[in-house]
């Protein structure tokens, strides 16, 4: 019995290929992401362990601010020369080297612009000799205060040569150095990872990078001959006491690599998320394929039943078939995934200057591929299998007529699921952390399945309404009627497209609402005429020289320049951000900040103001004191002198300038410029830009330009999501092709009849195309409604967090609808051609 059904299964090659393809794409994503992250992970391991080759023990201070990767950057604590001497005094310690390394050394390239980074750090540090695999390639080590060496990567990116005078921006404004050396690493590498490096002499590194003379970020120790690294570690740990992290070189390498792997794991989760979407959409396609196969085989199955096969046997054969399909798809997907993973790993390694540690197939990839591929196929096949088992034996003897089963049960369970989904999403908005994510995921999934179940009931009226658009021509009307014939099939085909469109629309609705809320609030209250701020710069906030402020204020037409300094700090026991301002009254005026309590005059020494929400949450009010631990220097108590009302883009603790001395950089990163009425904006801008000539990262913008740039990131994010979700749409197209091919096959006789009574080839193709377009537009419409609904629920949920306006992305929604039409037309091409080729005679021949 099994062999018979497998035989008939494999006789439907095209349909199988289409549905297998959907699973293959999903599995490819799953296994590909595992292969990619595995290869990159091992490569990072290798890189960091090679960086520790000349370190037996590494000493660092406990971080001043310790936060996880997702909450922001941890701020490492500093070590002193005294610490170094204590380490050197430990028995068994060989060479002891104090190291300085901090992100934020921005080098001005030959073109006068700062050499950018897309994310990796731009380290500034002290020259410690050719240790840890470092090799001088050209010139010599920096020996004087105005000399630097850079790594090969940075020299290439900035087009710098030994002997050049090179500007470097650090926690201090730009200073100019002579480039005396270019270095790389063992194995001919231009850098260690995609990291740009500048090495100064030690005192310069300490002053510019750490703002603290005599400080180090780590102490690297080699063990004296005969001393074991672990023993030395324990001895040093004992000598230093609390407040230090002491690790062997290997441990330190593993710890650093661990941080990178955390980031990789996050990346992996994103890829797996998209794989999930692909598989979810793919499961609709498989479900549909199996339903079609069952419908096609009703007679065959009924004959088997008549010959004595039990219902269970029928279900079993169907499930075995699905496992065969799932298995084939998983193998193909795994193979494709290894290929794609290897390709991406090579690209990533190339881009990140990594030595690729070889491509492997981690067990997770294999398990993921087979688990996901087989399970998804099995689940998708379950429903049709049960339906197949209900085929009565008598069906073998009758004309195949699939009774139009009532949709009530589907509709009711669909409504319940959709409502439950919406409920979960609403709940998720109130929860936080992982719980929120799982609730959200469950809610979205529930909503999708619910709507998918509802869609057959919706299909009839919607499709007939949609179809009216095409009813002016006979082929159009026939196509419309055809698409309304099997509402279940139409609905499930449309559901695949619905998921893709809904996800894009949902995300888009959220982002558009964010944008609208920001813009709306800005227009209401943002009064600053010009804003000085830094370009996107990973790792560090770009700054400009505080000494420029008086010159700016003297420019004709300028009323006030309120500068803002930013750094991380631990306030009231919570890691967060501190801002310090030069002119609070000006900012209060520029942002129309209402006073809630106390005074919003410029905070004096040891004084701070904060927003009403933070005050409420922390239970603080005017007159209270709050403890603040800045990144440099000792914790101190600050007295609260005022409370302002939080607005969309301004909140938190605002200090006077006294705290800037304890920040990592004593330079402002932001300024609000107010002009006199009738001032020449152009001239002021030119004046400001000229003053900022040595701060190439700073931009002078008006309100609109500033907001546009901030929101530009949103647009970019959107584009990326759209590209990735495009995959879901590709799978949906496969589904539409599948359904249409089936429809054409089923209606060979009808098409033949139509051709016999005068329907031309072109008209036949038009008929099929209209059918496809009606299905896809229905799917797109469903997706738009569901997506907008999901987006609205989430926006509503975030209303308390300042998302006050719900804005629908009408333009994009229109595009998606148009995309629905395009998808329909594309998917119809092949089925339409096969319909046009129907042989009239064969179609009407009576047997």
């Amino acid at each position, binding site marked *: 019995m099994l062999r018979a059904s497998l035989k008939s299964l494999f006789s439907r090659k095209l349909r199988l290929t289409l549905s297998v393809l959907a699973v293959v794409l999903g599995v490819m994503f799953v296994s590909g992401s595992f292969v990619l992250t595995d290869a990159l992970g091992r490569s990072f391991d290798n890189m960091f362990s090679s960086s520790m080759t000349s370190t037996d023990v590494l000493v660092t201070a406990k971080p001043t601010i310790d936060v996880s990767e997702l909450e922001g950057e941890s701020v490492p604590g500093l070590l002193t020369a005294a610490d170094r001497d204590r380490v050197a005094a430990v028995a068994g310690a060989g060479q002891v080297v104090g190291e300085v390394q901090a992100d934020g050394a921005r080098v001005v390239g030959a073109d006068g612009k700062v050499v950018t980074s897309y994310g990796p750090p731009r380290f500034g540090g002290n020259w410690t000799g050719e240790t840890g695999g470092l090799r001088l390639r050209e010139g010599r080590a920096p020996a004087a205060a105005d000399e630097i060496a850079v790594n090969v990567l940075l020299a290439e990116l900035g087009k710098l040569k030994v002997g050049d005078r090179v500007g470097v921006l650090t926690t201090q404004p730009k200073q100019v150095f002579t480039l005396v050396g270019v270095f790389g690493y063992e194995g001919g590498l231009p850098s260690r990872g995609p990291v740009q490096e500048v090495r100064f002499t030690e005192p310069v590194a300490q002053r510019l990078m750490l703002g603290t003379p005599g400080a180090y970020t780590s102490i690297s120790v080699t063990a004296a001959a005969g001393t074991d690294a672990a023993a030395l570690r324990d001895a040093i740990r004992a000598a230093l006491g609390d407040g230090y992290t002491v690790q062997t070189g290997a441990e330190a390498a593993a710890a650093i690599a661990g941080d990178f792997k955390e980031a990789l794991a996050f990346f992996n989760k994103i890829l797996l998320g998209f794989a999930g979407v692909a598989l979810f959409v793919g499961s609709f396609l498989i479900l549909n394929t199996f339903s079609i196969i069952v419908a096609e085989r009703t007679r065959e199955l009924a004959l088997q039943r008549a010959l004595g096969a039990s219902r269970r046997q029928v279900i079993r054969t169907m499930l075995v078939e699905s496992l065969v399909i799932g298995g084939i798809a998983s193998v193909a997907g795994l193979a494709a995934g290894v290929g794609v993973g290897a390709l991406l790993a090579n690209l990533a390694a190339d881009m990140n200057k990594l030595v690729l540690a070889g491509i492997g197939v981690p067990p997770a990839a294999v398990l993921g591929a087979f688990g996901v591929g087989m399970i998804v196929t099995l689940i998708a096949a379950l429903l049709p299998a049960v339906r197949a088992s209900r085929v009565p034996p008598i069906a073998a003897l009758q004309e195949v007529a699939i009774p139009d089963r009532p949709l009530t049960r589907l509709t009711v369970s669909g409504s319940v699921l959709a409502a439950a989904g919406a409920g979960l999403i609403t709940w998720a908005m109130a929860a936080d952390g992982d719980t929120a994510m799982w609730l959200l995921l469950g809610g979205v999934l529930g909503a999708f399945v619910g709507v998918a179940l509802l869609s057959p009931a919706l299909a009839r009226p919607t499709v007939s309404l949609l179809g009216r658009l095409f009813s002016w021509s*006979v082929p159009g009307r026939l196509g419309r009627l055809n698409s309304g014939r099997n509402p279940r099939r139409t609905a499930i085909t449309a559901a695949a497209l619905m998921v893709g469109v809904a996800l894009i629309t949902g995300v888009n609705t959220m982002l558009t609402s964010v944008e609208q809320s920001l813009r709306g609030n800005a227009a209401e209250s943002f009064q600053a005429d010009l804003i000085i701020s830094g370009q996107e710069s990973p790792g560090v906030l770009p700054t400009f020289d505080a000494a420029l402020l008086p010159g700016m204020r003297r420019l004709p037409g300028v009323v006030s320049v309120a500068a803002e300094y930013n750094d991380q700090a631990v306030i009231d026991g919570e890691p967060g951000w501190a801002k310090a301002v030069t002119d609070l009254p000006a900012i209060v005026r520029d942002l129309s900040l209402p006073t809630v309590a106390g005074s919003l005059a410029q905070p004096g020494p040891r004084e701070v103001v904060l927003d009403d929400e933070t005050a409420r949450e922390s239970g603080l009010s005017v007159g209270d004191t709050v403890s603040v631990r800045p990144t440099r220097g000792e914790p101190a108590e600050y007295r609260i002198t005022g409370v302002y009302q939080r607005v969309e883009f301004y909140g938190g603790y605002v200090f006077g300038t006294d705290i800037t001395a304890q920040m990592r950089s004593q330079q402002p990163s932001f300024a609000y410029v107010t002009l006199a009425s009738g001032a020449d904006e152009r001239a002021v801008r030119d004046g400001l830009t000229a003053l900022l000539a040595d701060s190439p990262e700073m931009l002078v913008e008006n309100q609109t330009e500033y907001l546009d740039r901030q929101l530009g990131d949103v647009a970019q994010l959107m584009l990326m999501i759209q590209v990735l979700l495009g995959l879901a749409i590709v799978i949906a197209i496969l589904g539409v092709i599948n359904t249409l091919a089936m429809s054409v096959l089923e209606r060979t*006789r009808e098409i033949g009849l*139509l051709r016999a*009574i005068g329907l*031309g080839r072109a*008209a036949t193709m038009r008929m099929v195309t209209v059918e496809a377009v009606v299905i896809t537009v229905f799917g797109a419409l469903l997706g738009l409604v569901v997506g907008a609904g999901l987006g609205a629920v989430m926006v509503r949920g975030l209303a308390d967090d300042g998302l006050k306006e719900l804005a629908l992305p009408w333009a994009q929604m229109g595009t998606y609808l148009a995309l629905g039409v395009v998808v329909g037309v594309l998917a119809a091409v092949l089925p339409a051609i096969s319909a046009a080729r129907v042989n009239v005679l064969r179609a*009407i021949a009576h047997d």
Partner: protein
Amino acid sequence: MTTAAPPQSRQRAETAAARAAGVWKVYGSGEAQVVALRDVDVELERGRFTAIMGPSGSGKSTLMHCLAGLDSVTRGQVSIGETAVTGLSDAGLTKLRRDKVGFIFQQFNLLPTLSAEENILLPLAIAGRRPDPAWYATVIDTVGLRDRLHHRPSQLSGGQQQRVACARALVARPEVIFADEPTGNLDSRSGAEVLAFLRRSVTEYGQTIIMVTHDANAASYADRVVFLADGAIVHELTSPSADAVLDTMKSLDRRDGR
């Protein structure tokens, strides 16, 4: 064009409605070669009801398919009215089917998604023509379907479905209606209704009908019966009785048996 013209009448009966000249239809080649039609010459007159008869395998269906342009001929010429069918492109054949030919098949005659009325008007709609209201009313009354017009095919009996198919063929007033075993799936009473209707449309409205059948009773409604055996025309009768047809068929069977 034809909508405005009066029903085709007997005055033009001299010109053939459909003609086959030296038609051969051969399937396969070499050993497996099957000759379905061998050198068939036949003229089917306008305004007459012609039945093509013959035992199964005699080539009667093939002859009709070739005459209607549904199938191509291996050799020879086929024409409908003034139009040479042989060598027409698909577009030409489509136009021919729209303008000059009507079909009634044994089954799967109607589109299940359309009502009876929509099915009847479908060929005109496809051709982008409007029905002549008077003629339409006449056809509907003749087939007796006025109260069934808004029903779907699934809500009609087999006989009613075939009458809808007849009305559809007739309403466009084609030069020729080809009917392929139109009563093959019907019980005798429904079959008689359909045949009576076809007869009337020839007698009263001058429609040309060519019908393939293996039923002697059905053939007795025709003005002329052409007998095929082994792909060739072997006999013909004019205005025969059912018994005469039956006798001829028997003699053909005997010939076959010999």
